């Protein structure tokens, strides 16, 4: 049994191809069933996210499945040409496939290295495979080992701890240096676009509960507010909202600043110079930069936050070799355990065969020498001698077989043993 992976990701395939090859959650279940119908003794797990599509499969024996089989299956699922699949998708087998899965699960292969979402997506794909009955002994052990490897990377490196998206840095690193908690803070979010929505997600995670969304299109503000259990306000109320704000966030697409210093100064006086953090995530900027020079006002623009993101990215890169070391250790450990497990049946059959031979020879000897008439202790001693002989004969080949298994069966001793002693398949 050999794990095989065929897939593509943002590293090696254009988004147009990824769109063509991707699976919706409903299609994943159908694909798993179709694969099992075509290859009944196989195991399969299918990971399909916005950045990657990867199919992990293994046949009942090493000859049942190959790259072309898997590629033609994928081609049939999406009505594509199998050659296109082979050209555009990467293929890994054996320990390479295992290492690739561990790397993906640990988020080292992600677009944003260290993002936490991929591990849950891998787990979800494995759960779907388990529920549909398409996972088997190898996929169970390899996906459980992938989870362990990802957890080890999380625990032993700080690769996941550094935030690298602008809204996450703004909320998770800047706001947390100003406020103890966002729970009792009035947050005013200007703009209800994509950036606003992403920022809202981080605000909610950080515990913000008093959020007001203000947008030129009021309907959009209301829709977003309903999704995130927040308030919405009319654009005309902007100044009134600023007076009540502790955290002011700009994510609009306005071409001119929505607030200049002259307008802000009387509002700040109304606020009694209360501490105010302004996060300007918009391009062009929503707030005049000179506002940040006022006392008790801290203004972070997108460039300031971007530089924090870049710094964090560099910090993550520093952790990369450590994380890769963990992955290679885990891959090696998994392969050793897997190969060792594969030798089990052969060793058992060899021992059984030796025991059968011993029994035959012992019976023959007992009958010929009429040993049953002698002292039973003599019979026992002879039996012990036979056992010692078998153990001494089998010890060197079995020790070599174990060593070879630890090295990934490079010398092919398992196969040799199978043929030499006629142990069957």
């Amino acid at each position, binding site marked *: 049994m050999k794990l095989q992976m065929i897939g593509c990701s943002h590293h090696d395939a254009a988004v147009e191809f990824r769109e063509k090859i991707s699976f919706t959650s409903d299609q994943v279940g159908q694909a798993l069933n179709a694969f099992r119908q075509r290859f009944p003794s196989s195991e399969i797990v299918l990971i399909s996210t916005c950045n990657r599509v990867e199919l992990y499969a293994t046949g009942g024996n090493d000859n049942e499945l190959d790259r072309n089989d898997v590629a033609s299956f994928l081609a049939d699922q999406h009505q594509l040409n199998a050659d296109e699949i082979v050209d555009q998708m990467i293929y890994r087998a054996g320990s390479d496939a295992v290492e690739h899965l561990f790397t993906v699960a640990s988020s080292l292969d992600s677009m944003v290295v260290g993002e936490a979402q991929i591990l849950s997506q891998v787990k979800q794909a494995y759960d779907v495979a388990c529920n549909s009955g398409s996972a088997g002994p190898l996929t169970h052990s390899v996906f459980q080992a992938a989870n362990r490897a990802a957890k080890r990377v999380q625990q032993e490196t700080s690769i996941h701890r550094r*935030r690298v998206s602008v809204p996450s*840095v703004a909320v998770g*690193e*800047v706001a*947390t*240096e*100003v*406020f*103890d908690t966002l729970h009792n803070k009035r947050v005013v979010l200007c703009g209800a676009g994509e950036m606003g929505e992403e920022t809202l997600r981080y605000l909610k995670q950080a515990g913000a509960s008093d959020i007001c969304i203000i947008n030129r299109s009021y309907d959009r503000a209301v829709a977003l507010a309903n999704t995130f259990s927040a308030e919405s306000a009319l654009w005309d109320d902007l100044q009134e909202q600023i007076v009540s704000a502790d955290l002011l966030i700009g994510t609009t697409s306005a071409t001119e600043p929505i607030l200049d210093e002259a307008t802000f100064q009387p509002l700040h*006086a109304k606020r*009694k*110079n*209360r*501490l105010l953090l302004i996060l300007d995530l918009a391009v062009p900027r929503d707030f005049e930069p000179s506002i*940040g020079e006022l*006392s*008790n006002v*801290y203004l*972070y623009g997108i460039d*300031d936050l971007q*530089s*924090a993101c870049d*710094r*964090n990215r560099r910090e993550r890169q520093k952790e990369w070799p450590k994380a890769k070391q963990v992955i290679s250790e885990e891959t090696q450990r998994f392969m050793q355990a897997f190969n060792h497990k594969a030798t089990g049946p052969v060793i058992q059959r060899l021992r059984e065969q030796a025991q059968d031979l011993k029994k035959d020879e012992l019976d023959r000897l007992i009958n010929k020498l009429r040993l049953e008439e002698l002292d039973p202790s003599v019979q026992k001693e002879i039996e012990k001698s036979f056992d010692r002989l078998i153990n001494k004969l089998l010890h060197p080949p079995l020790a070599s077989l174990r060593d070879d298994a630890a090295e990934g069966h490079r010398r092919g001793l398992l196969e040799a043993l199978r043929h030499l002693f006629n142990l069957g398949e």
Partner: protein
Amino acid sequence: MAFRHAIAMMAGSIAVLIGFLAGIMYLVQSRRLKQKRAGSSFRLPTLESLGRLNRRCLVGSTIAVGIGLIAGVVMNLNRWGSVGWTDRGVLLSTLLLVWLLGATGLEYFYAPASRGRKAIYLTLASGGFLVLAMIGVLTTSHGQAEKEPSSIEKVGQATSAHIERLDATEGIR
């Protein structure tokens, strides 16, 4: 009473000192944030908690120094019947209390200073007054000789005792 005086003054001094340190940290943190260095590996407590600690220290130190000063006055009145206001330790401690009362009043009743940077500057200045008061206490005999309210009072008391003795002697004659 002497014990209460000492404990309250010590608590007040510690509160002023903590407030002073919190104020310094607030200014450093504020400067870091203004220089867009949030999220770097060097971390300080949040501005909000430093500001809160600063205000609590201001109020706490005012109450403690107030109690300490009142306890000192009562103690002196009980022992000597008067207070040595001219003693440098007493004078500067009173000045510290007056400053703390003013600073607390400014912090809570003067709106533009409310929860602003001014409170931090007031606490930093309180640290300066604390140093002065400490110098006043440590460079004089304040609190060291129980029987000396002040040298002038000592002379006055000695003179009145002598006059009484003279009067008594003349009465016998």
